[in-house]
């Protein structure tokens, strides 16, 4: 019976798509979509699994301060956005968050941290926004920090703060896949015309 179970599990693993890694497919998974614009939109849809993950959304709020946790509840202690997206005078992000994740000394869990730890500007707010609208916003230099599509690729593929999403410290679920796959998806999305899902 034990051997049968092992064989069944091994069979199931072998049957899963080889390109999927923790729920994020690489660009090859979309190669069979012949229409390039449709393929591009599908690639962005896949990127959306990362963009709309709580690890990203918690600091891409549309108003006010950050949220936290997988249920994106209000940040504790209460934190306001502040003029520089960095909290209030006297208590900004760096009052608690350092340049790396720090494990708690007295209990399980950790406080997240990375260089440039701060909220994304309001113009880059994503919570409650449709993926199509996020796509339009992410391509718009007036709202994306004056980035070209190539800058976006660099940002997604290599920026350390983006990469924190896959290395969020003890007690937090990482974003799906890896930054490498996210970068590949972004590359393929741009190369197919950077179309947005409807």
């Amino acid at each position, binding site marked *: 019976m034990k051997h049968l179970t092992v064989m069944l599990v091994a069979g199931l693993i072998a049957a899963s798509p080889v390109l999927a890694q923790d729920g994020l497919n690489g660009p090859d998974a979309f190669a069979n979509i012949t229409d390039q614009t449709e393929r591009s939109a599908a690639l962005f849809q896949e990127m959306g699994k990362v963009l709309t993950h709580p690890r990203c959304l918690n600091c891409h709020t549309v108003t006010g301060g950050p949220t936290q946790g997988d249920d994106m509840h209000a940040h504790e202690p*209460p934190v306001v956005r502040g003029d520089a997206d960095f909290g209030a005078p006297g208590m900004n992000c760096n*009052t608690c968050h350092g340049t790396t994740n720090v494990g708690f000394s007295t209990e399980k869990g950790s406080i997240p941290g990375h260089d440039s730890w701060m909220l994304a500007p309001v113009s880059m707010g994503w919570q409650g926004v449709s993926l199509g609208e996020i796509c339009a916003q992410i391509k718009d230099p007036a709202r994306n920090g004056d980035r070209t599509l190539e800058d976006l690729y660099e940002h997604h593929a290599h920026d350390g703060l983006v990469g924190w999403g896959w290395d969020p410290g003890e007690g937090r679920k990482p974003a799906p896949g890896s930054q490498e796959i996210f970068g590949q998806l972004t590359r393929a999305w741009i190369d197919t015309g950077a179309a947005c899902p409807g």
Partner: protein
Amino acid sequence: MTKFQVNGRDYDLDIDPDTPLLWVLRDELRLTGTKFGCGVAQCGACTVMLDGVPRRSCVTPISAVEGSEVTTIEGMEGPEITAVQAAWNEIDVPQCGWCQSGQIMSATALLQQVPSPTDDDINNAMAGNICRCATYVRIRQAIHAAAKTLEG
């Protein structure tokens, strides 16, 4: 070895780099004015100044303060802390007192950055400092009083 300064004095300590700054201040340097409250950056009792801005020392590994200047409640100087201490005495803010060094550090940092804070400024800056005796009304009153003193 970690080299840093505390209250103007140089230290060069051979200590596990993951040790929280709070542990070092209290257990190694015997600066016990900074308190342990929660250990998870939720209460503010462990607030110190790190290179001049507030920092929760319970979630700050000693490796992160290499080359930095730490100021604890014992080493605070300047017009803002003087005004805050006077107001705290005058209004008799503390009850049990455990959280108060953290409260005073945050209040001083606020006044250094916003000399005449509104109630909202105070709420926002002090939201991370919890007081189990609920002295919040007196804390706010004392910050306003200190601001008035600083106005001259």
